[in-house]
């Protein structure tokens, strides 16, 4: 069975998932500068979403905060995000190590992303999107994930 190149649809769906995650996750108040700070969703590494992330958050708010997309070129920029999609093949382990303990929800779709400490990992099963959640990593970062999302995920240690 030959691997297929990801289709536009795959990343449209993942972009909407990222937007949805913001409703199922609680960050500690220290993750935001102030009550008026926006929620920043960042992409570190190659951007596979095109403009889908902007489309997904257009006109939306989360808890009264505006939603902003930031394309980060290095870890320093990434530190200002509350949610970070990590697409740095070959360097993911180091990136996750550098971010460990920070209150940033890390999301990725590399094969061992959750095993290496990433909090939410996308994978495909039967042509459909599924998620794995590393609860330990989330707890270490003081991030609470709602049971409604945990119910739909495979939990990874």
């Amino acid at each position, binding site marked *: 069975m030959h691997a297929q190149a990801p*289709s536009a649809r*795959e990343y449209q769906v993942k972009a909407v998932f990222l937007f949805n995650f913001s409703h199922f996750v609680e960050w500690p108040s220290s993750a935001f500068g102030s009550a008026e700070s926006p929620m920043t969703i960042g992409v570190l590494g190659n951007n596979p979403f095109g403009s889908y992330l902007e*489309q*997904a958050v257009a006109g939306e708010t989360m808890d009264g905060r505006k939603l902003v997309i930031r394309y980060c070129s290095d870890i320093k920029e990434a530190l200002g995000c509350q949610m970070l999609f990590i697409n740095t093949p070959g360097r993911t382990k180091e990136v996750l190590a550098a971010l460990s303990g920070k209150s940033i929800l890390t999301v990725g779709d590399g094969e061992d992303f959750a095993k290496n400490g990433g909090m939410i990992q996308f994978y495909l099963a039967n*042509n459909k999107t599924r998620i794995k959640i590393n609860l330990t990593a989330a707890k270490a970062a003081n991030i609470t994930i709602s049971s*409604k999302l945990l*119910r739909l995920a*495979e939990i990874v240690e």
Partner: protein
Amino acid sequence: MNKRIYHTRPLSSRPKQAIQLLWVAVLLLGAIPVFSQVKDPTLDLKKLSVEELMNIEVTSVSKSPEKLTEVASAIQVITNEDIKRSAATRLPEALRLAPNLQVAQSNSHDWAITARGFNGAPLQNNTLADKLLVMIDGRSVYTPLFGGVFWDVQNVMLEDIDRVEVVSGPGGTLWGANAVNGVINIITKSASQTQGLLATAMPGSFLEDRIGVRYGGRIDSNLYFRVYGQHFDQATSHLPNGNDAQDQWNMTQGGFRADYAPGSRDQLMIQGDFYGGKEDTAGRTEVDGQDIVAKWSHRYSHAGELVVQAYFDRTWRNLTKSVFTDRVNSYDLDIQRNFSLNRKNRIICGITYRYQQDQVNNTPTLLFTPETKDLQLFSGFVQDQVSIIAHRLDLTLGTKLLHNDYTGFEWQPSVRMAWTPSLNNTLWAAVSRAVRTPSRLDVEAKTPTIVTPPGSFLSENVISYELGYRLRPVENLNFSIATFYNDYHDLRSINTNQPGPPAFIFANGQKAQTWGLEISGNAVISEGWRLRGGYTFMNKQFQKTSPNVISGSDLFEGIDPNNQVLIQSITDLGRHLRFDWTGRYVDNLVQSSLTAGVPSYITLDARIAWDAKHYTISIAGQNLLQHYHAEFGTRQIPSSVYARICVRF
């Protein structure tokens, strides 16, 4: 005494005509997709819950089959979405959405369904179609009594169906016995895909009411379950003179499914159902049944898999008027293994053992001797998928060997080839042999006029030559063409019994050739408008191989339309409003000595719905273009409407 009085007198003509005109106007409006303001698909996706997002197929709206056995076959798939966006309320109605199936409703509770011909002649509106293998999650549902399916008791909850795979053509090698003309494989969603509460209620005119509830939960990480229950009451069909046919019925069914994945390599599934119902005035026919299925699959590290499945199935049917009762207990064990022998060869092999006990209470007019019969079926198959040129040319060779109690050993070999000259472009060809082993009706049935000598009835067999082409020129359009030529031998015939009495026997005195063309397609015309459908053509000719074959034997085996067309239109009008319609054309059925002819008909189902996150409200109409029409036999199916509310949490 049955207290309910079933009123299905036709409405006076003027309001009915007005309703029909209204539907046509709405149809014309809905067919124009200009109302779809949705330009970017992301907006569509944002309306979905996380569970629904997880159900989206990410490579394309209509996926091309990937398994080689599917690529080199005339397979068509009905998805859960296709069923939801139609007016189907029960499984047989959902099967109409496969263009390669002949689906005809013969009365309020019975259906004649087949592929590539041989919808057997109706006897009092019951069909004898016996050349299709039908399975629900791997459990065969055809009866050993006549080799066909009692569709009144196949009531899978439509909301729980993931997809229906319909393969027209012989599936004798890979699938079980009886797969002469095709295989219908109904696959339900796993428990993890049906979490939360779903409840639905539908009042209507022909479908008088239906209620369904399903709840899915999670016990442990990796252990999901669901339980469901449904009940419906269906009104009577009509006789040609307009009177009630007195065939109203009701059915209650419930069941569960649990899925457990202890690791990433193992999956265990257990499911069970039970049902009970009454049919016809004063509950003249009673049915009930139970089944339980368990399946374990284990994935090996080098792309190999082992699947073990076992099931128990019990069906009971009691015709109180004639005091004919039939009870079947089936026990089945199936083991399948697939693995890669080397880089070029992928092997699938398996064995099956099935034990069935059929117990009949005879009546003076229909007897089976012996009354209780034990039947054993052993079968094994092996198949090699050879990759001759990687990703370009594949050849599949396989055979099944089965042993049954009536005719002993039978072979079903098959050769299939698929050539993919460029991406999304496949030409395939196949030659296969398939066999229909005798059923109890062929061997052991006796009526006042038919007595077949024991041991004389042979298996029917077919050699099928198929050629097909599948094309996906752009991501949102795909279509496929399949042609076939089937050469049948030893078909059942009704012969005079000389020297006389009794008058007739079942024998294998006919042969036939059938040929045809199946075209199907799926297209996303614009954002928010999808069309799917197809055209099927089929013709056949019979020859007698014995001078004793009575005339009309050919039509007894199959009365089939030459042409049929299906078009389904699915439209999203904005974020919530939905408008869907399905149009069908079916050619006429010829008259035979046992049955009246059925004229050709065009019919239309339509549905308007409001989809919100936690509920859907819809109104739908079925068979809207005529007050009544017949599809098989003489019973008239009425046009009808229903309303539906479905809530989800």
